[in-house]
């Protein structure tokens, strides 16, 4: 059992949802992004999602696009990306998932890429522009390297397809409750709960369901967890703070607050 599965298992026993915290590797530079990742972990993030910057991030909104630009300005390379993971893993046992567009992976070779990041300490990979249909080889590699392969389900995905996607997924299933790209929003799509209810029965038993895209505060995290998700993913809201240049400590406090939203017992008290 890998770190991701262990983590979800533990949280389940604690009756807590997971907080998945996203940040862009190299934003604002490799060293500081590592510091921010550690701050997230210290703040209580249950999973770190580490973005690999890409020149053409079609699934991302302006916030994460801008983080990618900052990362490129810091001259991040594949080598320093892997190094961030290595350093993180040396300091922490918290599961780490890589979020990358497909082209850098393809370019390096799926296996080479996977081998490097897994050896560095990554536990899973989510590829926003690689649907299951294009993933035959990728799935094999993930199996070979015992890495979680995280796919996406959206409101547009019909039941048959959602089932198929869920069956290919390990680690967790990434449920995008709304249309569009990443980015913090104030309202949470009202249909999130019913979407969770629709998708849950299609999933293999034991596969955690994470909801992401657009969560920006504790209340939203709480809503999502209350609605039945196993995890809430927060990205742009955290990247926003990093863009503002907050200290790792400030970021840590914010993560801590978000994490509060994942406690089911606590949520009942609100």
């Amino acid at each position: 059992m890998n770190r991701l599965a262990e983590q979800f298992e533990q949280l389940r026993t604690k009756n807590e949802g997971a907080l998945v915290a996203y940040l862009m590797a190299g934003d604002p530079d490799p060293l500081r992004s590592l510091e921010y990742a550690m701050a997230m972990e210290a703040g209580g993030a249950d999973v770190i999602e580490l973005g690999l910057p890409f020149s053409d991030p079609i699934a991302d909104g302006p916030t994460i696009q801008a983080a990618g630009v900052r990362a490129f300005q810091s001259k991040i390379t594949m080598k320093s990306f892997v190094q961030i993971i290595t350093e993180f893993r040396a300091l922490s046992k918290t599961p780490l998932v890589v979020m990358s567009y497909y082209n850098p992976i393809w370019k390096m070779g799926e296996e080479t890429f996977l081998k490097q990041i897994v050896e560095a300490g990554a536990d899973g990979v989510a590829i926003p522009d690689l649907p299951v249909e294009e993933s035959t080889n990728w799935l094999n590699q993930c199996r070979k390297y015992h890495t979680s392969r995280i796919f996406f389900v959206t409101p547009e995905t019909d039941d048959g397809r959602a089932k198929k996607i869920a069956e290919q997924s390990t680690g967790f299933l990434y449920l995008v409750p709304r249309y569009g790209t990443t980015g913090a929003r104030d309202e949470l799509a009202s249909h999130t709960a019913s979407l969770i209810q629709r998708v849950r029965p299609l999933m293999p038993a034991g596969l955690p369901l994470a909801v992401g895209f657009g969560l920006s505060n504790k209340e939203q995290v709480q809503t999502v967890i209350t609605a039945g998700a196993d995890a809430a993913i927060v990205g742009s809201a955290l990247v926003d703070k990093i863009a503002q240049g907050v200290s790792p400590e400030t970021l840590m406090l914010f993560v801590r607050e978000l994490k509060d939203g994942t406690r089911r017992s606590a949520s009942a008290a609100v």
Partner: protein
Amino acid sequence: MATRVATSSNQLNKLGVGKLSELPKDGKYGDFGGQYVPEILIPALKQLEAAYESIKTDFEFQRELKVLREEYGGRPTPLYFAKRLTEYAGSAQIYLKREDLVHGGAHKFNNVIGQALLAKRMGKQRIIAETGAGQHGVATAMVGAMLGIPVEVYMGSTDIERQKMNVYRMKLLGAQVHPVIAGSATLKDAINEALRDWATNVQTTYYLIGSVVGPHPYPMIVRDFQRVIGDEIMGQTLRRDRKLPDLLVACVGGGSNALGTFYPFVNESSVHFLGAEAAGAASLGKGSVGVLHGAKTQVLQDEWGQISETHSISAGLDYAAVGPEHSLYKKLGRGEYISVNDEEAFEGFRMLSQLEGIIPALESAHAVYAGVQRARKMRKDQLIVITLSGRGDKDLETALRYEQARGTV
């Protein structure tokens, strides 16, 4: 030259397809193509494919398309024997396929009218498009105006600055133009942004892609709507010379005018294909296999898979990838692709203007240059058709600045 068409049936059989003309198979052109897009768009692509399949055999749709192509678009376009250009090149007979005469000034219309009718048929309330130089945006705005469908166009802010008149044209036609400031603020980024819009508004919105690029079924749809170029060429050369051309030449940006020209001849092994890429954006010549904007294809990228910024004097060729079907043609040797640099393209531009009184688009000028060079190596009884994808009016300012910088005007 005859050795160029080396597509052995062995190679094709290995790809598991009988004939190139039957591609795509499962959304793929051999190893190329596919649907590398966010999950939210997958159902929309399937819906699009289904809708497209249904109109392929729909009599009423096809008739409406034909009427609008002819009466609104000005099709068929002539095949013109370029006497003085032929004399200048001094060997093979050069014909020009006059897409520059199409409504809007470029072949872009052929595709836009087809897709816009499809959008209408699908009940979409809104069309979005990306544009680089503005040609595809203008064509989309025109057709949107004519059909009464609102059009919004994404355009890099750098391009907006460079192509003020096309921006004004789009506005005049009632379209909204959204500046894109991300990345290099050019075509690639405009596509990114259009994809994001589509992901957000996928239920109400038709994304009208301008070339044989993007995820399946776009490369197929655009090819099918552009094949009218090659279909007409076939009829015209047969009627005129009782034979097929020996060589077809077209410029390659995304590759739609080239594929529209080549595709109807793909099973005719005596017909050679020559694609002219911009040297500063030669995805086929200098790129490697990658994934961009939803398709696996030849891409200009760095060693880490980051997409390169490109440069070309012709905005329409200034794109880091190419249609997946071209990647396959290139791989199989079915098509030959060469690079033409800015200076050579400009030579083609001047040549055609002064010898034939036709000012070509700078994109098309790449094909003119390549065709004339090749003509010299061919026999007098051979027949070349160069597709003139568009007219040069849109490029006059660029050309003038270029000449001013070189002190030739």
